[in-house]
C-alpha cells in the first residue's frame, strides 16, 4: 500500500486511527465509552482488553466506521470520519481487515467464496484472485476445506476462515475481535504467531481479547485496557 503517504505525523509517528475525546452511549443514559483518547500507529501491534461488556467490540466498531460516536472525533487514515463521503468510507474500509467476534461468514458460500469476498466485491475477476485465495487458505491450514460450507466447520476452522477473509485484501490495519476465543491453546498460539508475522510484514494489528495468557506470550505488545468505559494505555516495558 501507499505507506506513510498522506498519513498524519506527530513527533515522527504515523497514525492510522486516532480517537480524540470519544464517548459512546447506546441508550443516551449509560456511557459505554467515556472520553477515550488513543492512536493506532503504523506498524504497531496491540491488544485491546478488559472485562466482558467493557466495550471492546464497540471500540472496534467505531474504528471500522460501523458506528458513530456520541461525541468526540475519530480520524481514520488521517481523515476525520464524519467528513468522508460514502465512496471515501468504502475506500477506507477496504484498507481495514476485520475478524468479527461471531465470524459473520456467509452460510451459503463455501469457505473459498467467503475468503474471496473482499477481492470479489472490488470487481476483480476470479482468474486473478482465485490463486491468492487458495494459497492463503492453504497457509491457514484450510487447503482441504475450501469447498465446504461454513456450517460444517469447527469453531476453529470458522475462525481461520474469518481471519483469511480479513487478510486477503492485504489490509493496512487488522482488527480482530476475540480471534482465539474458539480455539485450543495450541491453535491460539499459532494464530497469534500469524498475527505477529502479519505485523512484521507491515500491518498494524489490534487484537481484542481477555486471554491474559495469550497477552503474556507477546509481552512486547502495547495493551489498551478498557475499564469502566475509560481506556488505559500500557506501553510495553522494553
Amino acid at each position, binding site marked *: 500500500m501507499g505507506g506513510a503517504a498522506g498519513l498524519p505525523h506527530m513527533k515522527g509517528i504515523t497514525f492510522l486511527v486516532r480517537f480524540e475525546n470519544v464517548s459512546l452511549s447506546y441508550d443516551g443514559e449509560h456511557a459505554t465509552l467515556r472520553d477515550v483518547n488513543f492512536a493506532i500507529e503504523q506498524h504497531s501491534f496491540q491488544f485491546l482488553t478488559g472485562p466482558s461488556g467493557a466495550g471492546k467490540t464497540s471500540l472496534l466498531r467505531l474504528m*471500522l*466506521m*460501523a*458506528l*458513530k460516536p456520541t461525541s468526540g472525533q475519530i480520524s481514520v487514515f488521517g481523515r476525520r470520519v464524519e467528513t468522508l463521503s*460514502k*465512496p471515501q*468510507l*468504502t475506500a477506507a*474500509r*477496504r484498507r481495514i481487515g*476485520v475478524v*468479527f467476534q461471531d465470524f*459473520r*461468514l*456467509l*452460510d*451459503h*458460500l*463455501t469457505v*473459498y*467464496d467467503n475468503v474471496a*469476498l*473482499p477481492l*470479489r*466485491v*472490488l*470487481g476483480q475477476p*476470479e*482468474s486473478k484472485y*482465485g*490463486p*491468492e485465495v*487458495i*494459497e*492463503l487458505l*492453504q*497457509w491457514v491450514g484450510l487447503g482441504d476445506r*475450501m*469447498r465446504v460450507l461454513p456450517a460444517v466447520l469447527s469453531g476453529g476452522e470458522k475462525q481461520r476462515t474469518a481471519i483469511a*477473509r480479513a*487478510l486477503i*485484501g*492485504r489490509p493496512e490495519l487488522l482488527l480482530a475481535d476475540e480471534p482465539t476465543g474458539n480455539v485450543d491453546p495450541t491453535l491460539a498460539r499459532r494464530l497469534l504467531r*500469524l498475527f505477529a*508475522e*502479519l505485523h*512484521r*510484514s507491515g500491518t498494524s494489528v489490534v487484537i481484542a481479547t481477555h486471554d491474559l495468557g495469550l497477552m503474556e506470550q507477546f509481552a512486547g505488545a502495547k495493551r489498551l485496557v478498557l475499564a469502566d468505559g475509560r481506556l488505559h494505555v500500557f506501553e510495553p516495558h522494553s
Partner: protein
Amino acid sequence: MLHIKTLLSRKSLFPKVASLDVGQGRLIEKRRVALVQRDSISGRALVTVVAIMTFLATLSAGAAFLVAQASDGWQHQVSQEMTIQVRPAEGRSLDKDAAAAAALARATRGIASVRIVSKAESERLLQPWLGSGLNFDALPIPRMIIVKLGNGAPPDLQALNAALAKAVPNAALDDHRLWLQRLDTMAGTMETGAVLVFMLVLVATALAVGFATRGAMAGNRDIIDVLHFVGASDGYIAREFQGHFLRLGATGAASGALLAVLIYAAAGLFEHFAMATAGGDQLRALFGSFSIGSRGYGVIAMIALGIALLTAFMSRSVVIRHLRGLY
C-alpha cells in the same frame, strides 16, 4: 508452511499458481456463485406470490379487455343498423308502401344504404318456423327494410318517423336508440367495473409483491452487512440484490403470465370449436370474441414485466435504506 511475508508480496504468488493441482484449477474456473442466496424458502415464497398475483392481474386485465371489446361490438352493430317494418294493411299495396318507406329513408341525410328484404327472402327466413305447407300470401307478413347508417352525423330519425307516419302509416321505424342507450350505459358500467377491478388487483399486486420482497430481504440483512464491511460499495450491493430479485420476479411473473395466456388460448380454442353450434353463436353474440388479440398479449407482457421490475426495485430500496442506516 509458507511465510506470511512471501504470501503477502504479490510477486511470489503467481509462480506457485502453476503448481496448483487440477482440482483447484477447476475451483477457479467454476461458475460464479451468487452472493445472494439463490434458493431460499422466502425466495420461493416470493416467486409463488409474484406468479399468483401476476396471474390474477393479467386475468382481470384480460377480462376488462374482453368486456370493452364485446361492448364495442354491440354498440357498433346496433348503432349501424335500423329496421323499418311495413305491415300489410287493408286496401294498400305492401310493395308500394315498402318502396315509399324506402324512398323516404333514402332521402334522409346520414343514411348510407337502404335495402328492402324481398318477399321471397322473408319467406325463406320464416319458413322453418312456420312450416312449408302454408300459403304465405294469406299471411300478414310484414316487409322489412334494413337501413344502414353512415359514419357521419346521425340522421334525424324523428323527422323520418314523422314523414313515415304521414306517407306510410302502416310503417314503423324500429328505432334501436333507446335500447342502444341502455346497452351503452350497461356496457360502460361493465367496462368501468372491469377496469376498476383490474386497478384494485394491480394495487393488491404491488402491495403483495412489495411485502413479499421485503420479507425475502429480511433474511439478507446479514449479507448486506458483511458485504458492506468487506468493502463493497453501496452500488455494488444494491446491484447484486436487484439482479437477484429481478430474476426471482421475472420467474414468478413469467409463470403467472404464461398460465393466463394458456387460459386465454384455451378459451379461444373452445370458442373456435363451439362456433358451429347455436350455443357458440349466442356466446359470441354476447361476449364477442374470446381471443384477446396481440394487443391483449402485449398488455399481459407489460404487466408481467412491470411486476418483475417492481420486485427488483423494492429489493433495491430495502438495501439502500439499510445501508443508509449503516454509516
